[in-house]
């Protein structure tokens, strides 16, 4: 549907876009993402010729767009910008109808279209159509901005960080709405953002750009599991930690209170008091796991017992640090203890997981980073 062929763009000495070649298929939502200055917005604006490339060509449905009339071309491509850009001198209805009117639609047809579109986003015609943009909230304004772009039923819609200036609540609602509109209307949407969360949520295909080049073009799932470069991995940040691939070591607590098995019992009591815990991990000199010791165990001790090792409780379950998180969670739930001890390949203690870690991990997987 949209085809870039060795497209380049530079301003003076700085080359913004370098030999860009790619194809976008019809009916999909493409999210262009990357660090600022990577050329994603320039790429977008070259599609409706707000920016003209220096080299190469761009084809839409096989037709080189540089041979088309720019004004005509733009009327067939929806355009949504971050600053919304509704015309303050026009009502909501007039704003939505700008492109249809230029395409010589009849008044009745425009009117019908406005009604239909407002209904799509659950805004009442009677209540909103005659209002001016300044009388609407930011979220409502951008909703009208999206409808305005869809009004003349263009097959392609360009969205340049459309929700960047909205508050988080409105942003989320609009993301959902655009996604569902896309499913209903099968538009080819090119969406620019710098927010990976948004990209993962919206995209059929994520196009990652850096320094004027495309680094990776893949589905969100593919990009999560298989990021092509370190920059992408960095951009994904916390999102890379897909729950399906979580290991015990990803969420264990490394702050472990340990004592050596050869130390006198009195020392265990001391440490417990000082660290305010009721059980300790017992290891040998090489940090190999030996067992745990709890307050109950200490009470069993008699005057004859000398070292911690003699009172050792070996019932605590041990898990390997690269065990699948889900398996570990199952063990933890079934276990009578409050925690599991995590050991490395040589049985050395590397951490523990308790139910708090488990809840935190699950919460993060569900709602993202809480901190």
């Amino acid at each position, binding site marked *: 549907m949209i085809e870039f062929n060795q497209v380049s763009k530079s301003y003076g000495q700085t080359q913004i876009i370098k030999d860009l070649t790619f194809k976008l298929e019809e009916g999909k939502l493409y999210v262009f993402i990357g660090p600022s200055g990577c050329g994603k917005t320039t790429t977008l604006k070259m599609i409706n010729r*707000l920016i003209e490339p220096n080299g190469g060509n761009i084809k839409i449905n096989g037709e080189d767009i540089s041979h088309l009339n720019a004004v005509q071309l733009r009327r067939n491509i929806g355009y949504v910008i971050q*600053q919304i850009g509704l015309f303050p*001198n026009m009502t909501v209805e007039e704003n939505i109808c700008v492109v249809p009117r230029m395409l010589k639609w009849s008044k009745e047809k425009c009117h019908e279209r406005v009604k239909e579109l407002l209904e799509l986003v659950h805004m009442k015609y009677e209540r909103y159509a005659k209002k*001016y943009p300044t009388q609407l909230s930011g979220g409502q304004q951008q909703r009208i901005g999206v409808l305005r772009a869809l009004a003349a039923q263009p097959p392609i819609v360009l969205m340049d960080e459309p929700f960047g200036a909205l508050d988080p609540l409105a942003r989320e609602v609009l993301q959902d709405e655009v996604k569902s509109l896309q499913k209903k209307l099968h538009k080819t949407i090119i969406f620019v953002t710098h927010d990976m969360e948004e990209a993962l949520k919206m995209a059929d295909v994520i196009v990652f750009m850096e320094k004027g080049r495309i680094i990776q073009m893949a589905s969100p799932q593919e990009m999560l599991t298989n990021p092509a470069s370190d920059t992408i991995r960095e951009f994904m940040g916390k999102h890379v930690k897909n729950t399906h691939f979580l290991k015990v070591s990803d969420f264990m607590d490394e702050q472990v209170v340990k004592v050596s098995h050869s130390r006198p019992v009195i020392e265990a009591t001391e440490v417990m008091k000082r660290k305010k815990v009721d059980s300790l991990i017992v290891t040998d000199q090489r940090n190999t796991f030996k067992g745990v010791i709890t307050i109950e165990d200490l009470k069993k001790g008699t005057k004859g017992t000398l070292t911690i090792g003699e009172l050792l409780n070996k019932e605590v379950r041990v898990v390997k640090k690269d065990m699948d998180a889900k398996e570990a969670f199952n063990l933890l739930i079934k276990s009578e203890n409050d925690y599991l001890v995590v050991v490395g390949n040589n049985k050395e203690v590397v951490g523990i997981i308790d139910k708090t870690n488990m809840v935190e991990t699950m919460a993060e997987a569900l709602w993202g980073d809480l901190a």
Partner: protein
Amino acid sequence: MQVLLGYIVEHVYIVLIASLVATGIGILLGVVAYWVKYLDTIIIMTADSIQTIPSLALLAMLMICFGLGNTTLIVGLVLYSLLPIIRNTYNGLNNIPPSIHEAARGMGMSKYQRLVKVELPLAFPMIFSGVKIAVVTAIGISVIGVLIGAGGLGYPVYRGIQSNNLGLILQGAIPVVGLAILFDLGMGRIEKQLLSKKQFN
């Protein structure tokens, strides 16, 4: 009394014709200055320098081309009125947020459509205040039109000075002041309404 009314009507007529023509030319030049970036300084500087010429000198120069009468006065008033209108049109158009501009372009509006449908309506309150300044100034200046044979309220004032008749001077002067105040207040009110319109806030 009837004579005085005739002077007032002629005075207002001259001012209105001049303002109308000046508004047309001024908006046109303001748009040209806005569209053609390298012309903006030339246009505004020219209008600026016309305004620095003393009005009597300007009218005298114009008299050479246009002869005696109302036409010369109207041409002079038009030249005087241009600056505030050009400047306000230019500024009004340039003050439109770039996002509106980009949206209009991105939606496929031609340059002309952008101007007529979006830019001029948005700049209109500002253009109108330019016109107000022009009209009020023109009311005052046209009094000296009598020196180049034009009609209006300058005539009783001039005759009053010649015959040392204070009453006659005031007969011309008071209506001039009245007209200026009337137009200033009336147009100021419209201006305020335009600016407070919900669309523009």
